[in-house]
């Protein structure tokens, strides 16, 4: 493998920062990292005394032997909240992008984005009203 500067000419001069040769050092670096990780994994797995027992592999539940299996359909209201958060969080990506080209997009862009946000808000209020954001029902 050659590693001369000519081989690694920048694709578009000036558009990107000058890139000097580095495949060799990259390869060495990669090998070192891989070896280091492998040694860590090996040492962690091999070094040290291991005693397996029934008690050790039992789940910890405040010292009591757990009852039943943990593999069942489990209602997690938090999950809904988390999903909604993700959805609304991703919308942020559109808004930030728009903010960068705010000037260029002009009034049309503004109107489109306003429509988008209103639509989102309507969705949010709908979820809110449906009780999708409630974690639990409070005692009255």
């Amino acid at each position, binding site marked *: 493998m050659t590693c001369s500067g000519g081989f690694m000419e920048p694709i578009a001069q000036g558009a990107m920062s000058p890139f000097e040769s580095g495949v060799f050092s990259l390869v060495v670096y990669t090998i070192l990292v891989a070896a280091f990780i492998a040694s860590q994994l090996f040492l962690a797995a091999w070094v040290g005394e291991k005693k397996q027992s029934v008690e050790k592999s*039992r789940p*910890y*539940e*405040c*010292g*009591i032997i757990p009852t039943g299996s943990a593999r069942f359909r489990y209602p997690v209201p938090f999950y809904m909240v988390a999903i909604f958060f993700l959805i609304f969080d991703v919308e942020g990506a559109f808004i930030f992008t728009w903010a960068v080209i705010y000037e260029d997009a002009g009034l049309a862009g503004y109107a489109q984005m306003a429509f988008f946000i209103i639509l989102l808000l309507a969705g949010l209020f709908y979820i809110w009203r449906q009780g999708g954001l409630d974690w639990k029902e409070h*005692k*009255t």
Partner: protein
Amino acid sequence: MERAQDVAGDRERGAGSGYRVSDPRDQTSESRDPTADSRFLSLTDRVVNWARKFSLWPMFFGLSCCFVEEAASFTSRYDLARFGAEVLRPSPRQADLLIVSGTVFKKIAPIVLRLYEQMPEPKWVISMGSCSNSGGMYDVYSVVQGVDQIIPVDVYVPGCPPRPEALLQGLVILQEKISTEKPSRRIFHMAGGTQGTDRPVLVGGATKSRDPRGPGYEGVSIRGVSELPNPPQWGSRSDVMWTPPARRIEFSSGDLSLAAELRERFGQSFSAAPHTSDMLTIEAGPEIVKEVLRYLKFEAKAKYRRLDDLTAIDESARRERIWNKDFAGALTDLGGGLLRLPGSRPVVSAPDFTLVYQLLSFDSASRIRVKCGLHGAYPTAGSVTDIWPSANWYEREVFDMFGIRFEGHPNLSRILMPHWWEGHPLRKDYPGRATEMAPYTAADARMRQPLDAQQLSDTGYRRSEKELDAQGSQLGSISDTRYRTPDLRNEFLLNIGPHHVSTHGLLRCIAELEGEQIRDLELEIGYHHRASEKLGERQTWHQYIPYTDRNDYLAGSSLEFSYVTAVETLADIRVPERAQAIRVLLAELYRLSNHLVWFATFAHDLGAMTPNFYTFAEREMILDIIELITGGRLHAEYLRIGGVAADLPEGWKEAVDHLVKIFPRRLHEYEKLLRKNPIFLARTKGVGRISLEEAMDWGVTGPNLRACGLEWDLRRKFPYSGYENYEFEVPTATEGDCYARYLVRVEELRQSIRIIEQAADQMPSGRCVTEDYRYAIPKRNEMLRDIETLIHHFINVTRGMKIPRGEAYGATEVPRGEHGYYVISDGLGYAYRIRVRGPGFANIQTLPILAAGESIADLISIIGSIDIILPDIDR
């Protein structure tokens, strides 16, 4: 063998004789010559040991009092982290050092063993405190006589409880032990090498002495026996001592008219005791007792709304009864006038057991005791759970301890003793000492597992389906909406405790969960049953005082206060004014100390770690004052029947004044951390609400009752020890939720400091113990002056004083509510029976009501706000 026993026994009785580390000679697994190790292995040994000893990860198994000192060791004054042992962790998975602190109970021992086994290798164990070392002062049926009978122990820290510095010292000794280990061979999978604990688990009687006096006394038989019906104690020296009769009170007009009212209604099978020492006492036959109780609760003029206490007495060892039955002839041989026989009741009518119901009327601030005699070896009585829901646990306790059954009880099962237990410990024919029973072994700990959650939840007390449905419709959701289809009940049983940070002790909650919401909650208690009632039957009246402290290790002498109040009520002992003021001063100092711990732990439960480090600083300041006065920290053991142990020392006033000066400002500062904190408010407001009606019905006392809006404080309603002379307010709140309980307790801190200020300023002069030395241990300088005092001293410190035949209930307002002792004397040097009425037992029984419908996170907040402590629940 001989040597092994000595070493083991020596270790067992390690308290007081210094720290003990594994003897390197005993490390049998080190078979090869250590010098044979290559230089590489020696080097890695040194590096690994160095790394290990300064990065220990301690896991606590806090069982009782000692844990409070263990917890103090990581707060600012002691700072465990300085020694390379960081924050104590609750889970075995991330720990290599197990610190067992406190009393190891037979019921909890399987869990201690499990958590030890769940820890990764290598691991070490520190046993902290006399109880964990050897059973300590608890040689009783429910306690394992040393944790080294189930798991191997590296370092024993003596003390009861050891100070935090002692734990630090234990840690340093363990570090020294670690640096002598040779772990490299084990690390590299070679033969030989040592790491972690290599000690054997000891077996009581084989590799460890079982003599309660320690090793070396094998030739001398143990003095005294447990109080059993046979042999009867009819020849006691106490009989030749004269005492004035028990106190007699004047009944109020209300009491007299009530007695008349009852007599009119219930006629012949009802009788009222002509005179008592504390309250109106009536006796009702088993056939009408339930009607009498119902009448007292609902129809009597002063409605007795609260079931203060329900307990039983085993009458089989009453001397009067044994005299009549077996010794009528024998006594005549003793020569007439020597023993004065008490009025002889015919044997046939003397009951075998007496059920005792104690009721309280909020309206007239009066109490009444209803007694009901039962006949037979295992009698049956009617359950009163339909009159007071709180009777549920009380009746289970009576069943557990005496074997008396209750007809109509929804779930009559053991409550304090584990389900596999045989016998009923408070019966007089049951042996009291653990050393009289077979030794508890590691095999027992493997076999005697706690009941499965499913079993407890199925057999447990369940509110009726109708009630649950009503609740469901109130909640509006969980029964039918999006989370659940009718054919798929997504319920999950989760154990929270007994080993859990936020249960504040060995309490097991079994939550029936639907998602994160608690549908129903079942409690299992008894993991901390230290047999303090049985102990009262074998300790002299004075010797019992140290046990009372340990019934609530955060409230110190407040519990001694209740106990001595009860005995003083019974024997009609006048306490000098100075002693009364000192008692008040101490009780309020302990209230401050307790509420500061509560403040810290409550905040900690809700995720706020900071208050811990602040409030423990003031707590240490208070403990310093207590130590100056009493010589103790957690357990003062300072009150005496008839007064206090010693007069106030020099410099007490300055220390108290300093506290009074700085405390309000500090409290204000700490309050700012929480009171308006939006997270704190969201976690406490409207959470865990209980109505005043329910609280009164369930026997809730203390700040928890006052948070429901009732101004009920024994210091005001039944003033004792001169509380009527102090100016203070009884804070209340109305909401009955976690936040209301918080507000009440914080305000109590302010009021307590007011009382402390007044007590210190107006401290009367005079004696600090009664002059009636019949009932007190005389002061030394007076003892040396005249022969009568010398005789009293001799008798009172050897066989103990005699308390006249009778019974009395004495209660004080401890930080957690009404803590009372019901003492029954048969005219001997020790009690015939002592009943402990702990506020926690009643308070925690409401937890399922508070928590149903809330989320798991709220359960933690609710437990924190109730401020429980296990020894006063399980006793």
